[in-house]
Each structure stands twice: as structure tokens, then as C-alpha cells.
């Protein structure tokens, strides 16, 4: 019983070990890997997934899923692009883009909580609807020409590190605090653990579900902002398929698909593992198609590992 708490962190330590091992192997395999430029590249690339995965960690902790986050990246980018094109300030564009994302997330939550529809179905529908709207409104073309104030978000620097890294690590830190230290985070986990019990105790579960999905939408909006600012262009297909990477990172990080168990720190490490792997394999000139296969295998392996641990527990 005494080292039970240590046991809870064991998986996080394993993840950390895997990340270190992976880094060492990649550094040995490719001389370019450890260059500052490449490291920064990995961090930049991780930033987008990181922000997205933090929101996903909350949703999956609550036993839900959000497939619309990839499309929301595109939608938030489009909103910011159209506003900048119309001459709005970078601040207005960012604010509006993030607000729209949070509201769409809240709509997800409203449909799930009050419409009593499964989150998979709701967010799948919203995903295709959003992508359709983007393609129609943007006429399948990109929007260029953001001002320097906006592109600073993507390529500006604070000291030696780029803005996306600062933003994403900041959000990860706030996310960790919210999930593990606040009443809101506790309720997110409890929705996943035993929604009926939470309801019976007098907590307004529906309200928390709406807030939860709104938070996830907001994270997707921030990811959309970073993507758009980095490319200095709002792309109609931006973020397509990113929801899968976010889900993969969250699950690999030790958050339980059944809900009731979540780890923001685990998600952060898992995000870096997946991105270090992608980057290293690219440097080794291994086709991205193989990378996909590998990502899938890693995910399967990690779930098998945690599930078998779970089974052993329940058999005792």
C-alpha cells in the first residue's frame, strides 16, 4: 500500500525513460538530430499537438471524445484570416478566432449534455460540418498576408525559444493545474469515473460537460492560431487528421479511454515522444508512411500495457 502512490507515477517514469532512450538513439543515428535548429524544430512541431492534446486530455479523462478539434484548427485559422483580410487588428482577429472556437466547443458540449447524444457522433458530425463550411467559405484557397503582429505568434522569439513553445508549455502548465488541483478538473475526472454518482450528489453535470468541451474547443482554437501564424497563411485543410494525433498522445500519456484517469504531464511527454520519433525517422529518410504504421503500433502497445495492468488490478 505504501508505494501505491509511486506506482501511480510509474507509467509516467516509463514514458520519460522511453523519451530519453528515443532521443539518445536518434542522436546516435543522425548527426543532425541534436543541432539546436532541429531541436527547436521538434519543439515547434510539438507545440501544436501539445495544445491540442491538453484539451483532449480533459475530454478523454471525462470518458468522452472530441473528433472536431482538427477541423476547429482550420476554422479558427479561417476566422482569423478573414478578419485580418478585412483589416481587423491582429488582437481582434485572435480574440474572435479563439472565441468562435470556444463557442463551437460549447455547442459540442450542449449537444452531448442536453441532446444526450454520444460525444463520438456529435463531434464527428461537427467535424465534417466545419470542414465543409471552411471549404465553401474559403473556396478551397488559402488566405495570405497576415501582419507582423500576427506572425509573431508563430515565429517570434522570447529569448532563445519560439513563441509557440512558450504558449504551449504555458497552456500545459495551466492545464495540469486545472485538471489535478481544481474542482473543475476533479469533476471532469469524476464524469469519467461515475457520471451517475456525480449527478446524484447534486452536481450540475451538464454544465460541466459544456465547460469541458468549450475548453477543448478553445485549445483547438489556440492550436489553429499557432498553425496559421507559423505558415503566415490560413489553409482550408489545416489541421486535418490532427485529432488522431491528439488522441494518440493523450492515450499514450496514460489517460484512460474509459475516463476517470488523466495525466497532463503524461500527455506532454507522449507528445514529445511521438514528435521526436517523427522527426528522427524523417532525418533517417524513412518514409512518413512507415511512421504512421509505427505510431499505430506504439499506441496499441501502450494501451495493451495499461489495460493488462488494469486487468491485473481488477482480478485481485
Amino acid at each position, binding site marked *: 500500500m505504501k508505494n501505491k502512490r509511486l506506482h501511480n507515477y510509474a507509467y509516467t517514469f516509463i514514458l520519460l525513460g522511453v523519451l530519453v532512450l528515443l532521443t539518445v538513439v536518434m542522436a546516435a543515428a543522425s548527426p543532425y538530430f541534436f543541432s539546436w535548429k532541429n531541436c527547436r524544430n521538434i519543439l515547434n512541431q510539438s507545440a501544436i499537438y501539445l495544445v491540442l492534446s491538453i484539451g483532449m486530455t480533459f475530454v478523454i479523462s471525462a470518458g468522452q471524445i472530441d473528433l472536431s478539434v482538427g477541423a476547429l484548427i482550420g476554422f479558427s485559422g479561417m476566422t482569423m484570416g478573414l478578419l485580418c483580410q478585412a483589416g481587423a487588428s491582429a488582437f481582434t482577429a485572435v480574440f474572435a478566432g479563439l472565441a468562435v472556437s470556444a463557442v463551437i466547443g460549447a455547442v459540442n458540449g450542449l449537444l452531448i449534455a442536453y441532446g444526450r447524444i454520444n460525444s463520438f457522433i456529435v463531434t464527428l458530425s461537427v467535424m465534417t460540418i466545419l470542414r465543409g463550411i471552411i471549404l465553401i467559405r474559403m473556396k478551397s484557397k488559402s488566405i495570405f498576408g497576415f501582419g507582423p503582429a500576427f506572425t509573431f505568434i508563430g515565429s517570434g522569439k522570447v529569448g532563445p525559444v519560439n513563441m509557440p513553445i512558450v504558449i504551449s508549455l504555458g497552456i500545459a502548465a495551466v492545464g495540469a493545474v486545472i485538471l489535478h*488541483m*481544481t*474542482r473543475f478538473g476533479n469533476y471532469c475526472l469524476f464524469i469519467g469515473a461515475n457520471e*451517475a454518482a456525480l449527478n446524484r*450528489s447534486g452536481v450540475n453535470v451538464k454544465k460541466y460537460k459544456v465547460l469541458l468541451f468549450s475548453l477543448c474547443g478553445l485549445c483547438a482554437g489556440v492550436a489553429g492560431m499557432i498553425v496559421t501564424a507559423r505558415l503566415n497563411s490560413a489553409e482550408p485543410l489545416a489541421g486535418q487528421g490532427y485529432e488522431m494525433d491528439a488522441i494518440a498522445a493523450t492515450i499514450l500519456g496514460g489517460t484512460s479511454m474509459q475516463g*476517470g484517469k488523466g495525466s497532463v504531464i503524461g500527455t506532454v511527454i507522449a507528445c514529445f515522444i511521438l514528435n521526436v520519433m517523427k522527426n528522427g525517422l524523417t532525418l533517417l529518410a524513412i518514409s512518413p508512411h512507415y511512421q504512421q504504421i509505427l505510431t499505430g503500433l506504439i499506441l496499441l502497445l501502450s494501451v495493451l500495457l495499461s489495460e493488462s495492468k488494469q486487468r491485473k*488490478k481488477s482480478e485481485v
Partner: protein
Amino acid sequence: MGDEKAPFLEVENIKKVFGHVQALRGVSMNAYEGEVLAIVGDNGAGKSTLIKILSGVVHPDSGSIRISGKEYRDLTPKKAIEAGVSTVYQDLALGNTMDTASNLFLGTELTKGGFLKKKQMQEEARRLIDSLDIQIPDVTVPAGDLSGGQRQGIAVARLVHNGGRLLIFDEPTAAMGLNESNAVLKLIKKLSGQGYAVIIISHNLPHVFLISDRICVMRQGQVIQELKTQETNMDEIVSMITGAVTADITGD
């Protein structure tokens, strides 16, 4: 025992019909603080309906319910809890991945500006658990990793913490091992010793005889006999439950 005090719960002439089935045909009973009342009876005797009425889930067709001397006409689950009547659900309403403190303070978390006061919650959980003699060495362990008895302990501690004065247990020892049911029986005894009123519904007569102060036998929607546990025996109760002996014959 407790006869000289006013009852915490008074039920008078409760009737309930479901379609063509007369589930309760005028049930009257009292529950006292500091006393364990066992309700026994065969399946379909009306025990569950009675409990559902007491916890406000089902409304009686007629009859009166008084809790601490106050009459409740339209008892809802919320009103019942506020009045101090708490039911320990069979599923215990616990989050298995959550620790003791989170489960115990569910809905009544101690917070400061939205932040959980985890330390304080753990300390208070510890105190509450210890005061009820529940054996949980580490309150940070997820509830799913605890034994059935410990889990029941958390569920009870939560009800007590939320102001429960009358605790209703529906088959508390069903599907439990020997050690676990012993822990639960000890907990129930402890609760009555601390002045809580306890009602248990059980098919397990040895357990009933072990912990109850009074036994209330139900049959076909009626309370056919209320007895002091000390003044009866298992054979007598069994024959009353099955109807082999009618209340009139066993009565004085």
C-alpha cells in the same frame, strides 16, 4: 430500547398500489436513533417499495411520514437527504478511479477560489474514516483498489458527512466475503452506537440477528410483526416470513 424517546422516523398507514398490485397495504413503523432496525420479508413483501418511499423516490398513495417530528407530504430524494434520511445504494455511487477524499467530499469539496484544498480534505476524510472505525490505511488510494467493506465505508462516511441521521442499507452484505461482511456489520453497529438510526434490509438472518435491535417482518405489503431481536429466534422469524405461522398465533 429507545422506546422512551421520540422516534426519528414515524411511518403511518402507508399504502401504495402499482397498477393491480397492492405493494403496500397500510404499513406503520418507527425508527429510533441509536437503534438498528432490520426489515425482513420474502421477495415481493414490499421492503423495497417502503425504502423507495422513505428515500423520496416513490410517492405513497396515502399515509404519513414524519422525520424528526416534522411531517413530509411530498418527499423528494433531495428533501429526504436534507431531512437526514440517506440511502446507501447497492452500487455505492463511488468513482473507482478516484481517491477516498474525492469520493467522500463529492459535491461538497472544500475549495478556495475553485482550487481544491486537498490536504485539508484528506485530513478530514482521515478523521471521519477513523471515527467510524473504517480500516483504510491510505486515503489517496483509488476506491476501486479497496475492498467491498472499505468501499461501503466510504459511501457511509459520505452520507454521514452530508448530514445523514438515518442510514438505510439495502442488502449491505450481499455478494460479500466473510471478512468484508464482518467489517460492514461492525460499521453498522458502530453507527447505531454513535446515535445514528439505522435500517437494514437483509435476507441474511444470521446477520440480522447479529446486529439488529428490532426486527420488522413484512409479508404481502404489510408489517405483520415487530419484535425485539432478543425476544425472538430465527425459527420464529422464518415461519413468519414464509407464512407458516401467522402473526396472530405468535402474538401474545
